Each structure stands twice: as structure tokens, then as C-alpha cells.
């Protein structure tokens, strides 16, 4: 439970990979399967590149133990090789890790690292120094030990004890130690030594220790991934069931749209990053304006209405942050199309209000049993207007390897207000006959596949980073990106075979071509309209004035409005219609 309450302060996350480099790690699997060392490097590389994309500010280190050669600050520790000290991952480091992969990698490892006696105590001590040498605030410290040896010291009690001491020192300073144990003949008995090294799991389940050793790269990736991302609540609030009955909960963003990061501005001469400073000043006097010297304004009904900055905040404030229970509804009342933004995850915060987890757990269990969701009013942050949310129960689910797939808790689904649901003119529909439907069912059945939410990479982001990688590493050309969300047209065509034609014969007449544009009604581009269009733009100044008076500028098109701005000498930077109208109104209505 020590991790229940992370400090909510800004700071860097850090992760140290402590990898066993003994000769056992380099033994290849059956049928030429990659060695444990090779698999580990693969995973380390994945973490490096994914950190670069998702959280480049995190610090990562890569340390080997059980090496012949030593490399660490002042070379205090024998047989410990700090390959990368704690720092942000970059292109060079990815390359370094790449160099240790595969056949060539094993050779390089043999040369640079070599295999020697192990002292996990020394290795942990060395890692402790890595942490303490960091001049930055660290918010989360994690250390992962990759090994296939259940007893690194071959039963040497002194060394074992020393390792245990160092491990507990590390844990004392807030470092979480994980064991990623790898397959070895005869199985891996965690209880022999590592039980006392690793941090206890957060719950009583001892989940971590029951885990089977990783045999396949997939399992390894999954297990590392589950640990490598630090969960951090985006908000800690109370769920009020009514009458001052509060359960403390944390909101967690489990899916956040990853984006291409914005560019960094650099000074041309030196390629160093520049800082930007934004200032607000008075146009006439040029003096800087203090917050008290500006106001906020909006224009409605030809009138500019002003507010103080704190009034603007006051308007937004409905209540203090929190979730307030309105009641419960059967699950079928939650409509599929009531979706306005990605959901977040809700989990109790025992550290804020003791007893929260128990009541939360009871609520979860009962909601799930009765197949209902809880409807709540939600204000996640200060001065946020309220939203209504559905708390949908989710039971814990683990896979065969006992890795958690779905954590226990509520998914928070944001619900739309009346304003958010648009009224559509429903076209008249013709229904298909059962024969037509059945044919389509054949098509659908042929193209079945098992959907997994993490199966598709974002080609835009991947391409962007491959480009950067190529530039950073002076590669000739960026690595090719496979666009996974491109339909595999040939494969689909082959699978469907004659079904497509059969279906088309059932639904389309012979001369019908769905690809052709429907008879274009609007544009008459062919009538040489270029010359005629021009005069249209001209609207007399008087006419504009009439429009201003009547508030009917919205009737005019954007080009006309732009022209009008020019005619009246109205300066505007806006290009949107409303901006142009506002500018004209400001100038002419007074």
C-alpha cells in the first residue's frame, strides 16, 4: 500500500533495467529461439522507443551485472556495467541497444561485457548511486531485474545477505523493485532468493510471485509494459453517495489520443532551442498590461459585454470538484451513441478516506450483479462546469499467464447534453430483403477476424518518428512503416471470391455504378463562370451598411465580407466568417 499515495507533484519517472549478463542468459532456446538476453534487449528497445513517443521526459538506465568487465562511476563496483546511466532516451541509445540484439549482439556483448561472477548487492548499490546522482526531482522510481538464475550467488549466504540489505535500502528510498524472471530448464523458484529482493505487490494476492517465468517475447513485452507505465491519477475526488457519505476515488486516463508532438523552435545559427515569451501590452502606449488592466468581452446582439477575468471563472464554477450520485439505471439505458470523449477509469483511494475500497468494492459488485450503472454528476477539476457520467462496473480479468487484462473498477462514460445531440433529417430508407441480407451475412462471415484494441499502430505517428530516427541517426532512408489500418484489398477480394458479384447482382441494377458521382446539381463550373463570378463579390458600401444595421451580415459570403473589410479599411486577421462579421460590426455599427 505504500504506493497508494504518490506525491502529486511534478517530477520525472525513472526506470532502471538491471539485466543479468551471465552465460546462462545467452543460451539459445530450442529450434534457434532467441536467447533470454536477446529477448530482453528486444523489450528494452521497445520501451526506449515507446518512451520516446509517449513520455520522453522519463529517465531510463540500462545496467548489466555478472559481467567480466566493469564500467561505473569511479569503477567502485566490480562486474557491474552501466551501459546507459539514467537519462532521457534518445536516438543514440536506441542504436546502442540495437547493437546488442541478435547474433552480432551476442558477440558484441561477449567483447564489451563478458561473463563474470555476480554480486547483485553491488549491482543494486550501483543503481542506488545512479538514482542519487540525478539532480532532478524523481517522482517514480522503478527497477526491473531481468534474470533466468534463481540464485545469482549460487547459495553464497554473505552475498545473498548483502543483496537483501541493499535491496531494502533501495526500497526504503521509494524504489520499486520488480523481477522479470525468464525461462530456464527446471522452472524458476522465486522463493529461493528473489522473494526478499522484490517489492511486495500492492494487494495481498502475491500476484507477482505466482507468475510463471516468461518464455515468449510476447509475454515478456506484456509483463514489462504492465509495469513500465506509472499509473497516475488525473484527479482525486470524492464520490458522494448522498448526505455527506463520501468515497475517495481517483480518476485515471487509460486511453489518451497520442499525437504528433508540436515542433520545437530552434535558433538557426546554433540549433539551440529558443524560449518564447508572450506579452500583453497596450497598443498605443506600448506599456505592458497587468492582469488588472484587461477585461474579457464577448459580443452578442450587436453589443459588446465585458467581464472581469475572475468573473469569467466565477461563471464557470458550479461546485467544488467531485462526483455526486444521482441514481442508477439499467445497463441497456446506456446508449452506444452517447459518446463525446474517451472514458476514464475509477479506482478507490484508500489513502484519502479509509474504508473507501470496501464500499467501492461492494458498489462494484452489486452494480455488476444487478447489471446497472450509476449516474453521477462530475466536476473533475476546479472551475469546470459539470458533466453527467455513467459509472459502468468492470470486473477484474486476468489472462492465462495471470497478467491483469482488465482492472477492477468503474469505467466513467461521459454523457451528452441536449446541445451535444444533433437533429438530423433522416433520409427515407429502403430495407433490404432477407435474401440480400443473407448474402451480405456470407460476406461478413468470410471477413471475420479477432479485434484487439492494441492491434493497430498509428501510421502518422510511426512515420513521423521513423523520419526523425533516420535524421537523428544519419540513416540513408527512414525505416518503412506498414500502414496497419489499410485494408488488405487483395486478401479480401480473394476471400470473397464470387460473393461480391452475387451480392451486387442482388442489390444493384446492371448499369449502376456506385463509384460515379451522383448528378451534380450545384456547381456550374462548365459555363465559363470565372468572369461572371467577380462582379458578385462587389457589394456597394451602402448595402453593407444596411446589412450592418439589420444585423444581416451573416447572409453574405466570406469573399464578399473580405471585400467589404477592404473597402471600409477594417483591419482583421480573422478568416472565419464570424470573425469578419464581428470586425465589420465593431467598426460600422458605432
Amino acid at each position, binding site marked *: 500500500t505504500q504506493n497508494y499515495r504518490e506525491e502529486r507533484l511534478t517530477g520525472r519517472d525513472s526506470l532502471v533495467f538491471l539485466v543479468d549478463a551471465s552465460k546462462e542468459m545467452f543460451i539459445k532456446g530450442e529450434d534457434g529461439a532467441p536467447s533470454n538476453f536477446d529477448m530482453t534487449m528486444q523489450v528494452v528497445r521497445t520501451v526506449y522507443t515507446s518512451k520516446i513517443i509517449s513520455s520522453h521526459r522519463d529517465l531510463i538506465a540500462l545496467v548489466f551485472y555478472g559481467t567480466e568487465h566493469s564500467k561505473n562511476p569511479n569503477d567502485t563496483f566490480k562486474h557491474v556495467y552501466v551501459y546507459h546511466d539514467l537519462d532521457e532516451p534518445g536516438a543514440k541509445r536506441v542504436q546502442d541497444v540495437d547493437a546488442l540484439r541478435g547474433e552480432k549482439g551476442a558477440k558484441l556483448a561477449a567483447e564489451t561485457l563478458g561473463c563474470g561472477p555476480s554480486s547483485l548487492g553491488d549491482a543494486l548499490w550501483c543503481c542506488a548511486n545512479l538514482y542519487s546522482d540525478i539532480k532532478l526531482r524523481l517522482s517514480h522510481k522503478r527497477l526491473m531485474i531481468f534474470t533466468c538464475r534463481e540464485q545469482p550467488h549460487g547459495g553464497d549466504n554473505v552475498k545473498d545477505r548483502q543483496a537483501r540489505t541493499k535491496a531494502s535500502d533501495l526500497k526504503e528510498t521509494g524504489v520499486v523493485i520488480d523481477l522479470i524472471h525468464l525461462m530456464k530448464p527446471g522452472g524458476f523458484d522465486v522463493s529461493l532468493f528473489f522473494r526478499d529482493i522484490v517489492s511486495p505487490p500492492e494487494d495481498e494476492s502475491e500476484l507477482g510471485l505466482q507468475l510463471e517465468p516468461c518464455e515468449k517475447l510476447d509475454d515478456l513485452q506484456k509483463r514489462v509494459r504492465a509495469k513500465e507505465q506509472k499509473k497516475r491519477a488525473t484527479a482525486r475526488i470524492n464520490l458522494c453517495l448522498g448526505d455527506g457519505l463520501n468515497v475517495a476515488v481517483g480518476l485515471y486516463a487509460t486511453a489518451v489520443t497520442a499525437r504528433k508532438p508540436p515542433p520545437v523552435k530552434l535558433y538557426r545559427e546554433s540549433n539551440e532551442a529558443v524560449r518564447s515569451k*508572450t506579452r500583453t501590452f497596450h497598443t498605443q502606449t506600448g506599456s505592458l498590461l497587468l492582469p488588472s488592466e484587461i477585461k474579457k468581452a464577448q459580443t452578442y446582439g450587436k453589443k459588446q459585454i465585458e467581464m472581469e477575468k475572475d468573473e469569467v471563472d466565477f461563471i464557470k464554477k458550479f461546485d467544488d470538484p467531485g462526483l455526486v450520485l444521482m441514481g442508477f439505471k439499467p445497463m441497456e439505458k446506456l446508449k452506444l*451513441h452517447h459518446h*463525446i470523449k474517451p472514458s476514464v477509469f475509477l479506482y478507490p483511494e484508500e489513502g484519502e478516506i479509509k474504508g473507501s475500497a470496501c464500499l467501492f468494492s461492494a458498489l462494484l459488485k452489486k452494480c455488476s450483479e444487478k447489471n446497472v450503472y450509476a449516474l453521477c454528476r462530475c466536476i473533475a477539476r476546479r472551475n469546470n462546469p459539470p458533466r453527467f457520467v455513467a459509472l459502468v462496473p468492470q470486473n477484474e480479468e486476468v489472462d492465462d499467464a495471470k497478467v491483469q487484462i482488465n482492472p477492477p473498477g468503474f469505467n466513467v462514460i461521459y454523457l451528452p*447534453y441536449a446541445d451535444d445531440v444533433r437533429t438530423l433529417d433522416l433520409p427515407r430508407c429502403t430495407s433490404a430483403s432477407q435474401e440480400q441480407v443473407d448474402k451480405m451475412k456470407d460476406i461478413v462471415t468470410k471477413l471475420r477476424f479477432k479485434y484487439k484494441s492494441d492491434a493497430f499502430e498509428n501510421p502518422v505517428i510511426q512515420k513521423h518518428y521513423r523520419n526523425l530516427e533516420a535524421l537523428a541517426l544519419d540513416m540513408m532512408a527512414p525505416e518503412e512503416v506498414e500502414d496497419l489500418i489499410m485494408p488488405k484489398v487483395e486478401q479480401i477480394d480473394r476471400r470473397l471470391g464470387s460473393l461480391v458479384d452475387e451480392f451486387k447482382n442482388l442489390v444493384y441494377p446492371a448499369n449502376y455504378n456506385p463509384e460515379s458521382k451522383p448528378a451534380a446539381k450545384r456547381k456550374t463550373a462548365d459555363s465559363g463562370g470565372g468572369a461572371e463570378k467577380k462582379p458578385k463579390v462587389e457589394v456597394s458600401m451602402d448595402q453593407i451598411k444596411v446589412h450592418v444595421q439589420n444585423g444581416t451580415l451573416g447572409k453574405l459570403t466570406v469573399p464578399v465580407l473580405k471585400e467589404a473589410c477592404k473597402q471600409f479599411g477594417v483591419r482583421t486577421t480573422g478568416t472565419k466568417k464570424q470573425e469578419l462579421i464581428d470586425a465589420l460590426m465593431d467598426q460600422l455599427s458605432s
Partner: protein
Amino acid sequence: MAKSALILCMDVGFNMSNSGPGEESPFDQAKRVIQKFVQRQVFAETKDELALVLFGTDSTKNPLDNDDQYQNITVHRNLMVPDFKLLEEIENQIHPESQQADCIFDIALNVCVLVENTTIHKLDRRNIVLLTDLNSPVSSDNLDVIIENLKQADITLQFLPGQKRPRTEGRPGHGEAHHQLCMFKRIERRPMAWPCQLTIGSALSIRIVGYKAVTEEKLKKSWKTVDAQTNQKDDVKRETVYCLDDDNETEVQKEDIIQGFRYGSDIVPFSKVDQEQMKYTHDGKCFAVLGFTKQSSVQRHRFMGTQVIKIFPGKDDEHAAVALSALIQALHELQMVAIVRYAYDRRSNPQVGAAFPCIKQDHECLMYVQLPFMEDLRHFTFPSLENNSKFTPSDEQLSAVDSLIDSMMLVEEDEDGKQKDIFKVHDIPNPAFQRLFQCLHHRAVNPGTPLPAMESWLKATLECPEVIRERCQSALGEIKNKFTLTQVEKKKKLKTSAQIFGKDSDEPEAKKAKEDEADEEFNLADIAEGSVTSVGSVDPARDFRTLIRQKTLTFEEVCKQLTHRIEQLLGNKSTDYYMKSITCVEAFREQSVKLGNADLYNSYLQLLKSSIPTQGLESFWELLVQDGVTLISEDEVEGSTVTRNEARQFLVTERIEEAAAHPAEDPGDVDDLVRIVLL
């Protein structure tokens, strides 16, 4: 553009002033209704035009005015878009008058047709709203004829709350009309058709058209910054300048800035041209099926994006309708969904998403929702709740929760066995908009007065329904008895900046002594070099100490240089710089105590505190609080005006909520483009 016209006809004759004791007169009611209505129109910014015609006025002003016909009728305002001027006029210029207009309907019709002719626009819909108590002489036979006439002229006649309305069906009762008028109009947007082809492989395509069906609506307008004195937007200018991260903050011209991207710790210069050439490109608009999967494998909580798109068959294309219907029904029967690649157009990023079948009584469609990319997902593991004996609820506790749920069901079956939902969120108008409009309206018509409280009806819509609140009382009490909930005392584990700097906190005494030694050495070295002439940016705290020891500059001057440096550092809004700033503040404090001069330091710290909200320095302040860097009290420096208690209290600010790093709305590639252009 579709547009409608509305003529409000308000009876202001003497008959409207009659009311029972304590009752609101029909006139006041009608006026209130008109005000609310116009308000709604103003904030909805519809292009619909509105005219106001008054009946029963003492004077006469209308186009048909001649001799003795059409008397006591005033066209107060011809058809035009309503604005605040109209609202002010209604507020101040419309009073009950003493005449009575005869044959109000005949006249209304004729006047209104004329009023309508004053507009130059083609109108799609014409409405006349009459506000009268209908005590004016009119026979009901006559009324039917008039209504028929209006129908033929394609004009809709509506009554707003007169008290004794003629009994015609299907008109809202008074209360209802008023309640509807209380709300500001919901935001309405013209649905934009997105024509495309749904493709399955290379040979099968179906013409479709998509419409955004659900999305978080934003207001069309945002706050502008104006000068507080002149209220002019043009008097305020915002400017962004760029500077190097050096001591002098050397300014760099825009032309000398190129762009780069971060690749982990590396910054890779990457010109716009290169970026354009190398970036991911695709064929544009697309709705292509990748395959089909079970509906259950697409989890609701994995929905991404900010919208739901409804897909209908291409317009006026019967064959497309049949083909799409076959797909919708097939998916429905098989309980499957299509996984598709969706791209709005060439400039926007492609997505992966699911198309669900949706079959309603009056229509069929596909509903498209975006699904996550691998990069979007965070795989958090949470401790099990079931396996933890401490958290396992007892049977008693479970049954208490059970009854709470039963007592708080918002969906009930009525006598006919029909389900009734008493709390439909999608019928509630966005309270943020309602509140904003209320305040804007208030400020516009009552300038100089404080903003009003939230309207009670709005407040009520956000609360748990009264029935439920009463019904759940006993169950709630039971929960309180069965569960123990105790607030955990906030014993915040204080992290000092020493820890942050990675120094071991286990051995504070010894370490500290060592540090002081080191400090001394540093300073000696500096003095020997004699190189420090001003507080630089590399190690401002050290420079500060050195300068004070050198005594070549006054204490005030050195403090000024230091605080200037602190301001610069804080401008960066990053933890690294915050840490540096803290060492500066600490040095400032330490030297001030040493020299027995608390005033400069204390007033600076107070200034700093007051600038937290405006500068966004909350997290910096939290660091200061944790390190306990507070005011210098009279205990430390004689002559300080601060007591020890005040110094302690100084650090206690209201708890600052962490603003979570929620990403802004999806700017997509189009915005990237804009950003690049602006660079």
C-alpha cells in the same frame, strides 16, 4: 439560407392590465415572455428575423394607418435580426396603454403581411405570435375563418400565454411555454453531409453519406481580451517574442528560427519542406472495411475521439439504400461490427473505428465510433479488490448497497408496464451555456451590478430528483451504519529539495556540515578569481552570495539582480528551473537573516505569493511550501514586522488542485498546418 420570420404581436391595451389581487397582470406576463424569447434569439444568434407590433397603443404608427382604420396599432420594430437594442426597448419603452384594438386578428393578419413585405429576404417559414388575453371582441366563428386564412397564406399562428386562450388543440399550456422559454436555446448546427463510399475490398462499394450525430458542442464565440479602461479590443496587443536561454535572454528574430522535433533527448532540426515531403500521406476520403468482428470484442470504454457519426445511404440513391440496409441487417443479425479505416479528407489523419448497426423504427444506419491506436493505450495494473480481505465487503454490507441501488433506480415501470426514465441527461441543456448566457444578459442590461446567482430551475436540473432523494434516505442511513469511512489525516510526506537533488536525507547533520564546507570553498574560489560582477543565470544563488560578500554593490542592488533572475527562471514553468529558483529564494532568505534585513525579502516573497494565480506558479509554490521557505519572522531578525505565527500561516494557501495534463481538443493535422504557417 433557410430563414424564418416571426412577428410578435403584443396586446398592450387596457384589458391587459386587469388582474386579480396578487396576480401578475397579463401585460406583465406577456412582456416577460417576450423578453425571454428575444433573449433566446439573441444568444442563439439565429438569422431569423423578428418584428414587434403593439396593439392598443394610444398612438398609431403603421403602414395602413388611414383615417379611422388600423388605429391604435404601432409597428414598434420592422423585421430584422433581434439585438440588445430591442431588449432594452422592451424593458424601457413598452408600457400598458389605455386603448383597445378592435378585430385584432383581422388586423393582425393584414398588418403582419405588410410588415413582412418590409424585408428583402425570401423566407422559409413565417410565424405570427399573438400575446393577448383575448378579451378583445372577437367571435369564435370569426377566429376559425382567420385561422383558415392564415393557413392558406402559409403563416403559422401561435398563441403565447394569454390567459383565456381559445380552445384549440396541440398548443402548449402556459406553464410549459414559460418553462421552455426559461432556457436559452440549445446550440443548433446545420448537419454537414459527408458523402463517401463504403468499400469492402476493391470490388464492392456502397454510396454513403455521413453526419455528425453526437459531439461535444462548443460555443461559437470565445472571450476576447479588451482594455479595462476603454473596453477596446484594438487597444490590447499580444506579442510573442523568442529568446535564447542565456544570461541576457538575447532576443531572436522570427526569421532566424527554424523548427525541429524532439526524438527523446535529441532535438532534430526538421524543416517544414522536409517534413511535408517525408510525412505520411494518404489517398484522402475513405470509409474502408478492414474486416468484421464480434460486437462484444469492441469494448465501450475503448471508444476514442469526440464524436459519433451516423452513416446513411447516399442521397436519393435507392440502390445504395438497399445495399447498406443489407449490411446493417446482416451485422445486426450476426451481432457483429465492421472495423473500418476512416479518413475525413486528405488533410486529416486516418483513424481506425467501428461501425455498429443501428436499427430504429423509422430508420436504419451505421454508427461510426473511433477506436484506439496502440499508442493511445496505457496499460495500468490495479491491485485486485476481490483478493484483498481488508476490502471484501460482508454480506450485510452488500445487502445495504443492494437496497441503496433499489431505492435509487431512475428508471421505473409505470402502471402500463412502460419504462419511464426520470432523469434523461440528453434532455438537459448544457448548464455551462445556460449560465454564461444568463450572466452575459445580466451584464448587458444591468451594467455595473454584480453577477446574479444561478437560476433555480437550472440548479434543480443538476440535482438528484426529489423523489429519489427521499426514497433513499433509509438505505443511505443503513450504509452509514454498516460502513466505516474515515478521512485520512494528511500527513504529507515532505520532500525537501535536498531529496530532490538526490542527496541522502538519512544523514542530515553530517551531510549538511559537508555542504557548508563546500559552499565556503566555492566562495573562496570565487573571491580569489574576483570574477563575479553580477548575478548570472548559471548559478545565481552562488553569485548572489559572492556579491554580498564582496560588498561592491549595495544589498538592494544585489537583491534586485537576484529577483530579476528568479523572475526569468520562473518564466520557464519547468521543474528544473523551479529548483534553481528555490535555491535562489533560499539564498535570499539566508543572506537577509545574516545581514538582519528582512524587509526586502519579505516584501518580495509576498509579491511572489500574490502572483501565483496569474503566473500559474502553483507547483512552484508547493515546492516552496514543502521546503518550508517562508517569511522572515521577528524571532529571526529584529525589526521584522512579521510574527512567527504569521510566518507559519503565510505558507498555508488554499489547496491547489493539480491541473491534470488533459490534452486539448484534437487539433489534427490541419492545426499542425496552421501552426507551421504561423511559425
